């Protein structure tokens, strides 16, 4: 039984066809040049994909979370770097949608949905990654304006984003504001030579006395880390989990074809036990990861209380599986897997990065370990009989 509705199955076919035509032929080139082309972003915009999860009233497609997931799977199968665009852009759209005022929604969402404005998410700093509370970027109140100083690093699509959601502290309280790219005092420096996500337009953002309107603050003071960032990162985890699923599928497709064609010692590779085991484990983990990813987004669609945890489980399992099996894919493909003209070598590098972003897998272990212990342990706090 498929977890996808007929409409979702049709959309998945459309997404795959789109990616095979417009993304796959160019992905290795983008990776080598460390640059996603503007042309593919425009093509995605015309297809309406930059507004996938945005409601129709703001010019988007109104996809549910599972549909957004399978879109990321299709794109991730062809280019993890491009999936990074949808990841961060959607995080900003969803943040504005959830926590923004109606004026803020009208100001940005219709343009983001059309791809006329690209968004980036700036939380990480040179000295603060997993420990987000340690950020030192600072907002200072100056009349009805905010003055922003600080530095953000490793910001995906930060080099070409039109608006950036910048997290910092205002009088010690975490806040998040939309900063436009042409703001005086903002210096954008592209980051090169990454292991993975090489074409993802990563950047260092330096803010020197940038003047930001108070009207650009999303939500209210004090809630930026525990609510705004966590809410946004959940969409990021959905994107990463499904993109890793796509990467896993890509490994399976390439390796499956190779092992049935190539011969060694007068036998096709698939006839060798060690190779067959690697393909079996790859296939089983793909099926398991798919179920976890589907299950997580269905839970989120239903607003289930355990949706957040299921999304974390999906991201944790799928990225680990992608890293393990892309390594095996390189092994199976031999020299082909070691050459950057072939997708497997790119998969291998990208998959490692996916274990680190949107909450490292060690952070997931800490949170999930505590949660499972609580769920399966005995609880003694019970209500008074009068309730």
């Amino acid at each position, binding site marked *: 039984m498929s977890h996808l509705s007929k409409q979702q199955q049709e959309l998945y076919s459309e997404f795959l066809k789109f990616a095979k035509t417009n993304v796959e032929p160019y992905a290795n080139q983008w990776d080598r040049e460390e640059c996603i082309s503007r042309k593919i972003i425009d093509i995605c915009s015309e297809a309406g994909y930059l507004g996938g999860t945005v409601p129709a009233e703001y010019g988007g497609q109104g996809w549910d979370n599972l549909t957004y997931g399978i879109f990321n799977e299709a794109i991730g199968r062809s280019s993890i770097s491009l999936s990074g665009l949808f990841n961060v852009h959607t995080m900003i759209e969803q943040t504005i949608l959830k*926590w923004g*005022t109606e004026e803020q929604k009208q100001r940005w969402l219709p343009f983001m949905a059309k791809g006329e404005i690209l968004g980036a998410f700036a939380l990480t700093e040179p000295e603060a990654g997993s420990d987000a509370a340690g950020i030192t970027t600072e907002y200072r109140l100056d009349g009805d304006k905010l003055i922003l100083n600080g530095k953000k690093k490793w910001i995906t699509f930060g080099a070409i984003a039109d608006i950036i959601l910048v997290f910092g502290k205002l009088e010690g309280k975490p806040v998040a504001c939309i900063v436009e790219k042409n703001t005086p005092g903002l210096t954008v420096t592209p980051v090169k030579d990454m292991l993975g996500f090489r074409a993802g337009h990563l950047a260092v953002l330096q803010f020197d006395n940038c003047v930001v309107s108070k009207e650009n603050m999303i*939500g*209210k003071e004090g*809630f930026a880390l*525990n*609510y705004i960032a*966590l*809410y946004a990162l*959940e969409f990021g985890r959905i994107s990463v989990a499904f993109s890793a699923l796509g990467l896993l599928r890509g490994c399976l497709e390439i390796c499956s074809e190779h092992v049935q064609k190539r011969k060694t010692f007068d036998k096709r590779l698939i006839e060798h036990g060690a190779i067959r085991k690697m393909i079996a484990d790859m296939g089983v983990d793909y099926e398991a990861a798919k179920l976890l990813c589907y299950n997580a987004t269905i839970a989120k669609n239903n*607003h*289930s*209380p*355990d*949706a*957040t945890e299921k999304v974390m489980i999906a991201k944790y399992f799928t990225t680990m599986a992608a890293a393990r099996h892309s390594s095996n894919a390189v092994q199976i493909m031999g020299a082909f897997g070691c050459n950057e003209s072939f997708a497997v070598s790119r998969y291998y590098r990208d998959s490692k990065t996916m274990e680190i972003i949107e909450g490292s897998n060690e952070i997931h272990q800490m949170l999930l370990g505590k949660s499972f212990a*609580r*769920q*399966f342990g005995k*609880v003694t*706090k*019970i*209500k*008074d009989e009068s*309730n």
Partner: protein
Amino acid sequence: MTDNNIKSIVSEYIESSTNITGLAYDMDIFEEGLVNSLFAIELMTYLEKEFSIKITMDDLDMSHFKSVDSIAAFVVNKK
């Protein structure tokens, strides 16, 4: 919908997430460490859907969500 009905629905929701049975309606679910802010976001989304209310940034006062009693009072006030 009565105040008690709301409390029952909210209590069931929290219990299903925390593996607790017989949650005290006045228990501070955050202070007791039963849930964290990630759960709070899910809770808010659930309340919006279940009780057809809209929770905005202005409602983000944790005193509204700290216990079954306070959540029920908040929902009644929003409806």
